């Protein structure tokens, strides 16, 4: 057998070692992002999640007004944590619509009463059907939608104070 072939196992082992060591020192980002960023919002029509507030239709996003689409649930702890940031965005004049995932009207109403209500419309997604259509994999998530109904950005996880200015600029800048 050729001389160098004897070193093949050692080389293969070194390659595996290098691979896992690289992964260990710089763990890969495991958040699953939506592939629809940059594409049109899929069509949907959701009934109202709470009495006294309109439900949500995808057509409402194509009227030339950029806005945020917040995915939340009353049973989700980080959703409560990001409420001040959403309130700040609403105060800054950013229109926000929302989808409540697997939620009951009375729970959503209690959540809004307690943590504030920055939303213009809230659609009820009882079976995550719209969430799945959006490529969203959890709550809370916030999508930036431009005036033509195109998804500009997906923010995964709760919004932090530093996200407010950035998202405001992004929505104001979108057409």
């Amino acid at each position, binding site marked *: 057998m050729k001389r160098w072939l004897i070193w093949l196992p050692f080389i293969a*082992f070194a390659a595996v070692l290098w691979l896992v060591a690289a992964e260990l020192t710089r763990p890969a980002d495991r958040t699953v992002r939506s592939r629809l960023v940059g594409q049109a919002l899929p069509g949907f029509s959701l009934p109202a999640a709470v009495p006294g507030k309109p439900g949500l239709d995808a057509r409402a996003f194509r009227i030339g007004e950029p806005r945020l689409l917040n995915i939340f649930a009353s049973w989700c702890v980080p959703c409560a944590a990001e409420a001040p940031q959403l309130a700040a965005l609403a105060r800054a004049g950013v229109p926000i619509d929302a989808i409540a995932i697997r939620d009951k009207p009375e729970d959503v109403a209690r959540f809004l009463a307690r943590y504030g209500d920055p939303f213009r419309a809230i659609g009820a997604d009882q079976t995550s059907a719209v969430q799945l259509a959006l490529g969203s994999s959890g709550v809370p998530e916030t999508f930036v939608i431009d005036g033509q109904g195109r998804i500009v950005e997906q923010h995964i996880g709760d919004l932090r104070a530093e996200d407010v200015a950035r998202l405001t600029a992004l929505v104001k800048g979108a057409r």
Partner: protein
Amino acid sequence: MIAEAGLAALWLAAAVALLQLVLAGVALRGGQAEVLAAVRPVAVTGGVLALLAFLCLVAVFVRSDMSVLLVVENSHSAKPLLYRISGVWGNHEGSMLLWVTVLGLAGAAIARIEHRLDERPLVATLGAQGAIALGFFAFLLFASNPFARVAQPPANGLGLNPLLQDPGLAFHPPTLYLGYVGLSVAFSFAVGALVTRDVGPAFARAMRPWVLGAWIFLTLGITAGSYWAYYELGWGGWWFWDPVENASLMPWLAATALLHSVTVLATRDGLRAWTVMLAVVAFSMSMIGTFLVRSGILTSVHAFAVDPSRGTFILALLALYIGGALALFALRIGTVKTGTTFELLSREGGLVLNNLLLSVILGVVLIGTLYPIVASAFGVQLSVGPPFFDKAAGPIALALVVALAAGPLVRWRRDRWDALAGRLLVPVAATGLALGAVVLFAPFKSVLSSAGLVLAAGLAVASVAPLWGRNLARTPLFTWGMVIAHLGVAVSLFGMAADAAFTRETLIAARPGEQVGVGPFRVTFDGLKPAMGPNWSALEGRFTVQRGDAAPFVLRPQQRFFAQPPTTTSEASIATLWDGQLYAVLGNADAGGRWQVRLWWKPFVTCIWAGGALIALGGALSLLGRIRRARLRHEEAWA
């Protein structure tokens, strides 16, 4: 005090391991005979000290000493004694201590009982054992001290993950560890043989019982682990191609190949380099497995304490030992004389085919398990799961089954195709009959399941064929072992294929009083009641099951609530009948008061684990036969 004694024993054991390594090095570099002779007693001392440290940790857990951090984090005084003891290895530190303890005891055992191998390769082997032990002692002492105290002892501990509070856990990890340690012994023998350039039948005979023993424990560990996942995870699956499962499968595949190649080396003095390489690969697979499980770089469904910093330590040890051994292999193997070569059609040829196919499966599993990391290096998130492994490894596994059926019927050294065809006539006829039966009666689910059913029948007949025409009373024990192990593969394969082909599933939302059917059974949901255990409370569903006119029986699946730590688990209720298992799971209730119920009728699924047990039994018989023959030879030599 017990904890401090344990820590002291651990430090002493580490010092002794260092001494063992140094003495072996001096002895091999032309030291005096006294130095050579000193290595054995040192190895025994190291084993005793490690055992002492381990017993100290057991004592601390049994007494629920809440001043020890590990006990606080993993135990609770209300736990039953069995789980207080199994809690010792139900965590990272304790399981590593168990690992080095078994390693130390194995080193002591080699030092005490191995007398056939020349003294120099033996001392080199013990030196390698010392080096391995030293690394793991350092890991324990510097990165995962099991005896660390807490400043303010709490009133009670945090408890053990409820999923782990199961008799399965009490035995599953220690069994796998025994297997891993056995492979480390094989590795040390290989390193010893490379260092002393003494690769031959004597080396193979010394290594074989350790490989066989490791393989028995790995087989038992995987079988038990599979059954444990089957009834604990509550979805009726018994193998998920999960990284943690693959991590336990890979050493087994390597050990299976090694087991067969070591036989070729022992009896025919062939496959020298290959056997040494496999011994290194087998141990490296057990270490890579440990690394994958502990470092958390791959996500797994199986609960494990994950810590990247510890992963780094294991990785460094891995690089040192396996990299070192592979480099040694590359440098030395050229100076080892090539072994005997074989005729294509011979038992040796069959065993080479066995090794080839097993190694390819091993490679496929390894690449499939690591490929998500490769993809992530390119910025792509990828999942590699059952569809890949079934498609890529399944056909090779079936080819291996064919080789396994024919192999034992081929003669050593040289055989004739026509003679072999004559011996294969009955198994081939059985395969043909099975094919007809499967085509006529079995539902077609996949090529793999149908081919599995057919080949299982053929293999079952072929595996007992080596016994035909022999005086059974005079057949050597290791031949019986081979026959039973191969029969076990057939039984297990039948179970897997039957589960894939015949399983019936019923998923419903039912109110108490409703009746549903699954397979040949009528199942009535009688209702629910609360139930209590030592450290849990539960809601228990009651289902009356009737099959035809037979007497009804009752299944009681539970939703269990643990307070420490607060968790809900669903406990499947499984009825084992002669022809399969009925599996019931109670899920949540919906707003309308209907309960989610999952029922599976799994014909012959038990064969999977019964086959695994048979394989291990075959290994045990074989080991017994080898030991007995070695002892006979030993006595003859002295007579």
